[in-house]
């Protein structure tokens, strides 16, 4: 029988956990619901007042707070609140305020309790949602705030333990034991940092090769180690450690070491532990074992999203994981094929090089070989190396590149001088195909081997591109071929020509044109950065855009990137294959509003680009 509250019933059918209820129970819920309207800014629930209903958001957005006024949760259409109060004494525990004009469906306490008792799925959903939220807001609301907002100096608990560069390994080991530390900084005669040794270095570089402990500590230390300044953010430290797979990171203040942070100092800030995933990657012995880590990678991605990490953190963590897979595969390949006949550099291209990788990604890679490379003698080795890595990456979820931008393709397995020639030709004589190559290859990052060659290529691009207006104009024309939509109307995407689409490809219409646009400005100012946010920093510093425009770009890019990330995380949570196709009806009114504004920023920036580079 059709009930009269059909709008309510239809709404419940669209939202978990209600949509999972049997039809009869769902009708009963729909029949029990009362409704109330709350103007933006008005109070919905006050602390400790009696609570009679579960509050389900029909439209609008709501924020709940802790007693001390800290934000507890923010929800939009389909979100619900008050369940904790109902389960614990029918009093309001988290006061709620309407963030936008909001319509609330009230589900009476007795119906809520009945669902909770009768329906295991419902109870799980409510409770898991509850504990998940509490976990993320307790362990991490503090940690998250710190990870994003606190500086490295807050992690330092003791002075660094140091020793002079004239000391022997034996003296160093003595000191480490005395002070019970696992790492030691080595200072030169001017008290500047010369290197670092760790327990592991002593094992692997002294004991294992059978050296005597009288040798100088400088013989086995890691010279010129990666460091961080004490006023940098904790999440930057995390990114550095991820990127270089470090377990100890010296902290400097005006060139002087003031401490060391260890991986364990950071892991407690980051429960999902992309750091753990990375360290596990390096412990796997076969491609099969690496493949078995894929679920962990996905879980890590979803948890970062749940814990409100920003797109830069997620993008660099996923890129670090991808890079680690490549590095480990190269180690395994060299173990199988033997050492390389001439030195090489393995390159990551595209999103991994930009530190903007997500879970759904193909492998773009290439090989720079030593200039002494002789195809007849050496290519067989590098062909096998490239295949090993490429097949291994495909097994680990990084699909083959359909455009054949892979080191398995002989065109992209060339000595350094050939690469330099490629890059010069692409810039001086742009054609459609070459422009496409430029947009892929100019976002490059050395992953393994002779990393300095990757840097040399970056320098080359930065030197040549900014002096070639024709090249920049051609890149601009290319970049403008992909435009953002105008906005949303009800459940479809409104195109700029008035056409309506039901699906929005958030990569093709959002993040990709953004990345293209930022790249062109970055090339124009001679930047050697690959990450879009780092490029924007330099664009801001170079003052080439009207005041405030680059900052708008940064915020708008974040909105679009996070929409894409949340969309993929939602797919993973539901056990579906993540993709880039966002259905407008899946977005909340809140998200649509912000997306629409972000698209507007992108559209204006494209117009400016066109004018600026006379495309």
């Amino acid at each position, binding site marked *: 029988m059709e009930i009269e509250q059909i709008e309510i019933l239809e709404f419940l059918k669209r939202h978990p956990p209600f949509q999972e209820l049997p039809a009869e129970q769902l009708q009963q819920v729909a029949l029990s619901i009362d409704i109330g309207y709350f103007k933006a800014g008005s109070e919905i629930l006050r602390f400790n007042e009696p609570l009679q209903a579960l509050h389900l958001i029909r439209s*609008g957005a709501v924020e709940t707070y802790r007693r001390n006024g800290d934000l507890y949760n923010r929800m939009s259409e389909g979100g619900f609140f008050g369940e904790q109060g109902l389960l614990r004494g029918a009093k309001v525990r988290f006061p709620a305020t309407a963030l936008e004009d909001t319509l609330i469906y009230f589900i009476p306490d007795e119906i809520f309790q009945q669902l909770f008792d009768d329906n295991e799925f419902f109870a799980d959903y409510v409770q898991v949602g509850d504990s998940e939220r509490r976990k993320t807001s307790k362990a991490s609301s503090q940690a998250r705030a710190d990870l994003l907002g606190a500086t490295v100096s807050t992690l330092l608990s003791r002075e660094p333990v140091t020793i002079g560069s004239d000391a022997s390994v034996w003296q160093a080991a003595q000191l480490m034991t005395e002070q019970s530390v696992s790492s030691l900084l080595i200072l030169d005669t001017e008290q500047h940092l010369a290197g670092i040794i760790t327990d592991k270095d002593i094992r692997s570089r002294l004991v294992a090769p059978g050296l005597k402990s009288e040798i100088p500590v400088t013989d086995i230390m890691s010279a010129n180690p990666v460091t961080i300044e004490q006023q940098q953010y904790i999440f930057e430290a995390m990114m550095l450690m991820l990127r270089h797979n470090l377990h100890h990171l010296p902290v400097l203040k005006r060139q002087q070491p003031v401490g060391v942070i260890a991986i364990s100092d950071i892991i407690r800030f980051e429960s999902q532990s992309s750091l753990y995933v990375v360290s596990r990657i390096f412990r796997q012995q076969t491609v099969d074992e690496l493949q078995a880590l894929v679920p962990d990678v996905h879980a890590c991605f979803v948890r970062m999203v749940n814990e409100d990490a920003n797109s830069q953190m997620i993008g660099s963590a996923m890129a670090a994981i991808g890079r680690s897979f490549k590095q480990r595969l190269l180690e395994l390949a060299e173990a199988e094929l033997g050492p390389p006949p001439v030195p090489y550099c393995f390159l990551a291209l595209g999103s991994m090089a930009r530190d903007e990788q997500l879970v759904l990604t193909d492998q773009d890679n290439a090989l720079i070989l030593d200039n002494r490379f002789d195809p007849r003698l050496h290519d067989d080795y590098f062909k096998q190396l490239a295949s090993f890595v490429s097949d291994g990456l495909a097994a680990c979820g990084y699909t083959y590149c359909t455009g054949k931008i892979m080191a398995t393709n002989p065109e992209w397995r060339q000595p350094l001088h050939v690469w330099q020639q490629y890059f010069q030709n692409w810039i001086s004589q742009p054609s459609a195909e070459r422009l496409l190559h430029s947009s892929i290859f100019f976002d490059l990052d050395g992953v393994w081997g002779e990393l300095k060659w990757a840097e040399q290529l970056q320098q080359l691009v930065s030197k040549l591109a900014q002096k070639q207006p024709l090249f920049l104009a051609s890149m601009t024309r290319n970049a403008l071929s992909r435009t953002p939509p105008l906005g949303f109307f009800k459940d479809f995407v409104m195109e700029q020509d008035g056409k309506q689409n039901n699906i929005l490809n958030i990569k093709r219409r959002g993040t990709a044109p953004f990345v293209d646009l930022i790249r062109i400005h970055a090339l124009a100012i001679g930047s050697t950065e690959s990450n879009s946010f780092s490029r924007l920093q330099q664009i801001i510093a170079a003052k080439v855009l009207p005041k405030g425009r680059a900052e708008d770009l940064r915020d708008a890019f974040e909105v679009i990137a996070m929409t894409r990330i949340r969309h993929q995380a939602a797919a993973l949570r539901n056990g579906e294959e993540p993709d880039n196709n966002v259905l407008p009806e899946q977005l909340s009114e809140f998200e649509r509003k912000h997306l629409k504004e972000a698209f507007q920023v992108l559209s204006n920036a494209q117009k400016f680009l066109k004018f600026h580079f006379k495309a």
Partner: protein
Amino acid sequence: MLYLGPDQADQTKQDSTSTDWQQYYQQQAAIAKHPLLQQFYSNGMIAASTPISQVPLVAIDFETTGLSAEDNGIVSIGLVPFNLQRIFSSQARQWLLKPRFALTDNSVTVHRITHSEVSNAPDLSAVLPELLPLLAGKVAVVHYRQIERNFLAASVKVRLGESILFPVIDTLELEARLHRARPLSWWDKLRRRQQVSIRLDASRSRYQLPPYRPHHAVTDAIASAELFQAQLSHRYSPDTPVSELWC
């Protein structure tokens, strides 16, 4: 008796603020002959000075076979009681009715109620004993009052021999007060400025209320109740005397 056809409708609007509905209900309770109407009026009406936050409200919506109360009939009635805090959709009611006049194909398309559904439905007279007590003592809220007030007046007159009249708050009229306060100037017309739409869905979207499937009596009644709560919270104090809103 006090049946107001479409022509006189404007007149009610004229003296709306001066109508003393409490007094009117007292008079009618004494005059009315039909027991249903006697009962309806003897429930009384709140004083004109009552703050809107204290007023028991009921949102109603009729689906009809056409726009004129004289030549068309009611196909369905939806109602939902509410106040400024809550819309009691759990107590919402809906009746399908067999209209006095045949369904036109056009009206079938509009509200999707078919000939066969209606042919098994009761006549309004069978529903009045249930309907009138739900309206008694409450102030009705409608979107475009000409429909509900005139159709009920005309239909009740035919069946009970006496008409019925009650105060209504018209959410369309409240929107018109805001957006139609003055006609478009020649300058606006020159710039082809459009009148702001005060239809139900357009009005609702101005208060960020979600779109609903229209022309379903209970849904439209709930939609009007939500709109009224939104209008009140944005534009009126809860202490506003009901006399400033009803007519």
